[in-house]
């Protein structure tokens, strides 16, 4: 219990009986929120940018660097908006990316390797976790979603490539296969066959114009950063929209059925009330 905690509890006027309830509620909400952030982040990323994250021979210099930040910042922004607006908690982005990484590794072990015998080297995932940490940090410092969108989303898009290149560079060393030069990643993709992925189906870079020297990766990273800004604002908006707590008015019959009419139908309902109350 730090000094700040005591100040918050005093301001919130919770009696000593209520404080343990409040702490229990904290833990329950953490569990529910964790499950939900984990599920929504994973299903959203899985079907919007999953393929580039599944296979090592999809991690090219054009689409992988562009698509992964874009398809993960959307849920990071939405959850950031929810927890910030409701509780001033800047953990939405980090929680989304951390749980996505955890879920991804679980599936890589249990399903890709466990069920279909694919080696882990074929299915190593990348992560935007460092970008998410920067997003949350800038939200704390600026306390404004405008500035976070401008600086945080740009760094989010820019950081993905270098943060993952640190451990992916080894896969792009040249190696000989059947007399042709290829990359270690291509060789892994070729060696371990996938029935649903013929080579031509890969949506990867098929050639550059060298308009930027030999650094097409940074062109993709900057384009990704640029798109991330707009997606951040759009999905921060969706997060705010999701926080509207509207109740629709309900007809009398609905209230009658739900025993909410009170006195008027009390007599007809009273008899029923004698039955065992809600044994939740």
């Amino acid at each position: 219990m730090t000094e700040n905690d005591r100040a918050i509890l005093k301001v919130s006027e919770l009696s000593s009986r209520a404080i343990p309830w409040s702490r229990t509620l904290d833990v329950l909400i953490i569990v529910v929120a964790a499950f939900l952030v984990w599920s929504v982040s994973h299903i959203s990323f899985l079907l919007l940018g999953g393929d580039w994250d599944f296979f090592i021979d999809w991690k090219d210099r054009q689409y992988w660097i562009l698509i992964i930040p874009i398809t993960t910042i959307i849920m990071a922004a939405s959850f950031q908006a929810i927890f910030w607006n409701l509780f001033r908690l800047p953990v939405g982005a980090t929680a989304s990316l951390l749980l996505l990484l955890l879920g991804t590794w679980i599936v890589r072990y249990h399903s890709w390797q466990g069920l279909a015998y694919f080696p882990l080297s074929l299915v190593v995932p990348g992560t935007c976790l460092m970008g998410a940490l920067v997003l949350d940090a800038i939200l704390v410092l600026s306390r404004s979603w405008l500035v976070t969108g401008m600086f945080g989303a740009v760094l989010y898009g820019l950081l993905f490539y270098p943060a993952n290149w640190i451990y992916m560079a080894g896969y792009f060393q040249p190696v000989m296969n059947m007399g042709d030069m290829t990359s270690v990643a291509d060789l892994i993709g070729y060696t371990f066959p996938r029935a649903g992925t013929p080579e031509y189906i890969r949506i990867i870079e098929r050639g550059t114009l060298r308009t930027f020297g030999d650094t097409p990766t940074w062109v993709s990273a900057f384009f990704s950063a640029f798109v991330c800004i707009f997606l951040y604002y759009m999905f921060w908006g969706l997060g705010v929209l999701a926080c509207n707590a509207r109740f629709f008015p309900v007809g009398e019959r609905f209230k009658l059925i739900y025993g909410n009419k009170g006195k008027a139908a009390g007599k007809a309902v009273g008899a029923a009330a004698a039955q065992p109350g809600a044994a939740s």
Partner: protein
Amino acid sequence: MSLHRMSLRRFGLSILLAAMTAATTLVSLPAAAHGERATEPYIRTRTVHWYDVTWSSEKIGVNDKVTVEGKFHLFTDWPDAASKPELAFLSNASPGAVMTRVESYINDMPAQQSVRQLEIGRDYPFKMVMAGRVPGRWHLHPVLNVHGAGPIVGPGHWVEVTGSAADYKLPVTTMTGEVIDDLQHYGVARVQWWQAGYALLAVAWIVWWIRRPLIVPRWNAIRKGREDLLITRTDDRVAAGLLVLVLVVVIGGYRYTTQKYEYVVPLQAGSFKTKPLPQVPSLVAVEMKDATYDVPGRSLRLDVEITNQSESPMRLGEFTTANLRFLDKSLDVAVAGVDPSFPKDLVAGSSLKLSDSSPIAPGEKRTLRIEATDAAWEIERLVSFLTNVDSRVGGMLFFFDAKGQRHMAEVFGPIVPVFTQLQLAQSH
């Protein structure tokens, strides 16, 4: 009975009925077709015809090799519904990575990438070398994936892999001299260590926030306008520190990595072209006059007009389509054409019935009735070409001359279902 209770029962009943109907509709989904058998018949009979396919062995240990070799012919009557083989990839249909690809060639050109512009009507030899990785009994087929038509599956053969999966090793040496002892685990530990570090940072950040009174206290504090309590000056310091730490770690790590792996190549995404086998002048002209499928009799009847343009007498030895082979058992050279390693269940039990199996003299033109009878038409679900969008059939005829030389010819055309077998049985 008060209105209240009566409506209640009706409401409960309606829920019950809705649930039951939902359950039954889902259950009555048709039991669907099978793996390679699910491919449309027009693709299996009129696109790629695999022949002379051999498997080097039926039983291999982990790390041992098995070679699948053969040829495939691209049918001239290519169906409109499937796009032409402009872009294709030679693959294999074994479940997951139970067997690994070592080498694959199409007409001696390495087939790691996709192949462009295969020519319709021509033949291509292929070779695939696979290695055993996971013990078990696996069905190994050659497959030609054609862009826009999907996988076209060749004949499948059971291969037994023995030993233990742990013995599988795949050492590789890169052109920059780095020796990789096993490609299966290469780089994985490095990824995991770095991502564990990132995750540790993230967990610390989250715990830093959720360790304090969280939901209702902060909710009340916001209602009272005391937001200043919620984000303290130390939080600013922690956030600024985190921002700098993340950027420094990433920039430093990236710089170290670009120096360590100076020579890197992007993913190889080109495709290759390969020449077909030389065009053999077809010495036997074949034209389909009529094709019927006797539904109850499970037999395909083709009336074919054959013109022998060679100098040697010709005999029809085999009719093959959709990986099924119907042999004229009386012709030894035809029977010898079946490689011992060829799966028995793809060779029809009953012989190919010909209206006149005497050799066709050079220059002679003869209309022959060919009858291929086998339950495989049903088991392989090929009969749906009767109920298909364009009910045509296609296949290959193998003729053998006096010296045993084989001459191939395509036969294709519309097909009509008939029910004669039943009438025959009833008539006598």
